[in-house]
């Protein structure tokens, strides 16, 4: 693999500026070495700088190592270690780069899937030179949009995080020449300081959503959901994030991706759930990268989590499809999704990421994404980047409705046979537990996994089973953010979640709640055990102590299908069978 030569690193008058699209830095990902060879040659002929990669993971690693080291990514749909679409999502979320998909299969459904996942284009193999010659337009388009965003937004010139001649500047300035003329007035174009984020100045450079930034984002989202129960909009998020150089557009587009991501995770969870009792160990840690920041560590850890079934799908946050997230609609969706995700099995590693589901504010979700801001109470401590904000609030979100979380919600086995299949999402949420909660490096704080929240929720102290189903649902809905309670379950590494309510859900709850300040004590594996095993009853979600009351909109509860109850009862571990799903769904209701 050749790394792009730093012609652009020269900062000012870098040749790239003048000769765009020459020097475009392309990362090609394909497991077929023959194609890699050909594409490399073709791209070089276009005067692009090419880096090739045979594995999706490797590609993500490269991208993360050199944020802004690439302008565009071209990836095959079929990769052995990770689904190409997943990679696509990751890249979109974390790096906000244009991604082109390639495949020998041109079926409309596949193409559509690609587009849905955010692909800028879908190329059919065999790929011709002329197609590659034009890929720069995707990069250009993005830049233009960014600039326009800035322009219309009146972004702050803000603090320019100048990168001094970093590649960013080069990149950013690539074509801006004329287009940015108007931007110039904002900042002097010559600055070439390309800020890390988008600065209104000059050309708006693509914002690189670092882990920290994303964390802030997630935190803000949770907070909003938490407080207002609705109205999670880019503007508010932006305000909360308090990052001067960030613009509303940046946030808006990031938000959209996030939702997509969660939604996908949710789906995966659902899928997993439907698989029934996915054992943690089965979780393939295929996606180490953990979407959205949850690094793969989570996945890896999954295996350790004995019971880590509870997958709180952090994804729940995005659970809703990106489009339209109307809360109401989403809620329903979430509910259903939650159900599915209830399969507390650890959904595939990706799900782990999703565990960061946020609890959506149960309030009237309006069009804005209502991130049930159940702040992830725990701070994934380890998570390198404080992945989960320790807001333990999520638990709070549960409000009364949730108090009924099915006791054994956290069972990792949440084998929800029925609709709660969504357990998968739960699992995902849970899966986060083990590793995620521990905040291992992998988990990006993306979404404060509600797992902690859920935990508390789940660990109903009382066995309020009856209300359980419903509540769990609501919980799910609201919480969306299942935090990887499971994490607590399994690898409770001393991270964040201090689900050490080991055999006491209450303590768990406490922990969860207290987790808010990221003082999660490491979840004890015992915790999970208790969750799973039969201490479920304590898990009833009736988190009485959880101050969810504020957040939980009783209305939501109603939405939860009762089926949750069903599944719950089926859980053998716990008498209550807490609706695992609830956990999961929580994250989903992104609105």
């Amino acid at each position, binding site marked *: 693999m050749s790394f792009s030569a730093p012609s652009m690193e020269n900062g000012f008058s870098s040749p790239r500026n003048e000769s765009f699209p020459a020097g475009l830095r392309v990362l090609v990902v394909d497991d077929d070495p023959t194609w890699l*060879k050909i594409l490399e040659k073709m791209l070089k002929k276009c005067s692009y700088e090419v880096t090739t990669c045979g594995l999706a993971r490797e590609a993500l690693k490269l991208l993360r190592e050199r944020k802004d080291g690439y302008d565009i990514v071209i990836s*095959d749909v*079929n990769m052995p270690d990770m689904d190409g679409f997943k990679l696509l999502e990751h890249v979109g979320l974390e790096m906000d780069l244009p991604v082109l998909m390639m495949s*020998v299969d041109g079926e409309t459904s596949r193409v559509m899937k690609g587009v849905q996942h955010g692909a800028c284009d879908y190329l059919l193999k*065999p790929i*011709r030179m002329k197609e590659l010659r034009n890929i720069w337009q995707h990069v250009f388009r993005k830049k233009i949009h960014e600039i326009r965003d800035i322009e219309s937004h009146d972004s702050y010139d803000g603090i320019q995080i100048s990168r001094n001649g970093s590649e960013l500047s080069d990149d950013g300035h690539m074509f801006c020449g004329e287009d940015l003329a108007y931007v110039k007035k904002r900042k002097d174009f010559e600055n070439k300081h390309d800020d890390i984020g988008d600065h209104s100045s000059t050309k708006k450079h693509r914002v690189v959503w670092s882990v920290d930034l994303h964390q802030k984002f997630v935190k803000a989202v949770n907070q909003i959901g938490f407080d207002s129960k609705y109205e999670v909009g880019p503007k508010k998020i932006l305000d909360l994030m308090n990052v001067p150089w960030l613009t509303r557009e940046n946030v808006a587009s990031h938000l959209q991706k996030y939702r997509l991501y969660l939604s996908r995770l949710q789906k995966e969870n659902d899928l997993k759930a439907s698989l029934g009792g996915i054992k943690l160990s089965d979780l393939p840690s295929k996606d180490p990268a953990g979407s959205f920041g949850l690094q793969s560590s989570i996945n890896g850890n999954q295996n350790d989590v004995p019971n880590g079934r509870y997958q709180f799908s952090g994804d729940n946050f995005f659970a809703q499809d990106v489009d339209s997230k109307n809360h109401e609609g989403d809620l329903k969706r979430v509910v259903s999704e939650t159900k599915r995700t209830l399969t507390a099995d650890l959904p595939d590693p990706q799900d782990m990421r999703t565990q960061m589901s946020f609890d959506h504010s149960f309030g009237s979700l309006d069009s804005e994404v209502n991130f049930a801001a159940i702040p992830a109470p725990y701070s994934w401590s380890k998570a390198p980047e404080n992945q989960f904000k320790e807001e333990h609030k999520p638990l709070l979100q549960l409000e009364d409705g949730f108090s009924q979380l099915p006791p054994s919600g956290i069972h990792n086995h949440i084998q929800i046979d029925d609709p709660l299949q969504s357990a998968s999402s739960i699992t995902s949420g849970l899966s986060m537990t083990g590793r995620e909660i521990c905040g291992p490096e992998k988990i990006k704080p993306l979404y404060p996994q509600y797992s902690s929240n859920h935990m508390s929720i789940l660990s109903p102290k009382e066995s309020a089973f009856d209300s359980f189903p419903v509540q769990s649902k609501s919980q799910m809905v609201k919480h969306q953010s299942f935090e990887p309670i499971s994490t607590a379950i399994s690898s409770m590494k001393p991270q964040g979640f201090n689900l050490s309510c080991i055999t006491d859900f209450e303590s768990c709850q406490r922990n969860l709640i207290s987790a808010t300040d990221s003082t999660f004590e490491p979840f004890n594996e015992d915790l999970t055990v208790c969750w799973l095993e039969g201490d479920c009853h304590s898990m009833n979600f009736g988190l009485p102590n959880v101050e969810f009351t504020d957040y939980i909109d009783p209305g939501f509860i109603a939405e939860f299908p009762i089926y949750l109850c069903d599944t719950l009862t089926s859980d053998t571990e716990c008498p209550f069978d807490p609706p695992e799903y609830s956990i999961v769904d929580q994250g989903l209701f992104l609105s």
Partner: protein
Amino acid sequence: MERNHLPRHLVLQRQSLFDQGLLDEQFIQLEELQDDANPNFVEEVVTSYYQNTSTLIVIIEQALGTSPLDFNKLDGYMYQLKGSSSSFGAKKVKADCTLFREYCKAGNVEGCMRTFQQLKKEYASLKRKLEAYFQLARQARVTGTASRPK
């Protein structure tokens, strides 16, 4: 080496590969990528292809030996082979892959078996023909450079 400088017999040989439907446009694309830096680019690609897919062929064959057939898996293998074959324009091999996948979708064991045999033959035959072609081309390049205008 520019095509128009190829000795006549080579030109004819090359053309016949196209006429027989063994190669398609993609091959030409690769030829156009050849330059001084990579004068044997197409040959390298084809060599890489045969190296990387030989195992796949064996795997598919083994999979076809099991019973019952796992059509999903077979389809997956063929998808890979098809993708690879498309890289340099192996038209017939690619068509056989597509046909095989159709049979997989239909769950037609007999069809799969038959098509695979056909594919194997095409795969091997193409290899021979291309090897011969490339060898001649290399020779022609060596002998022809002196007389070719630069």
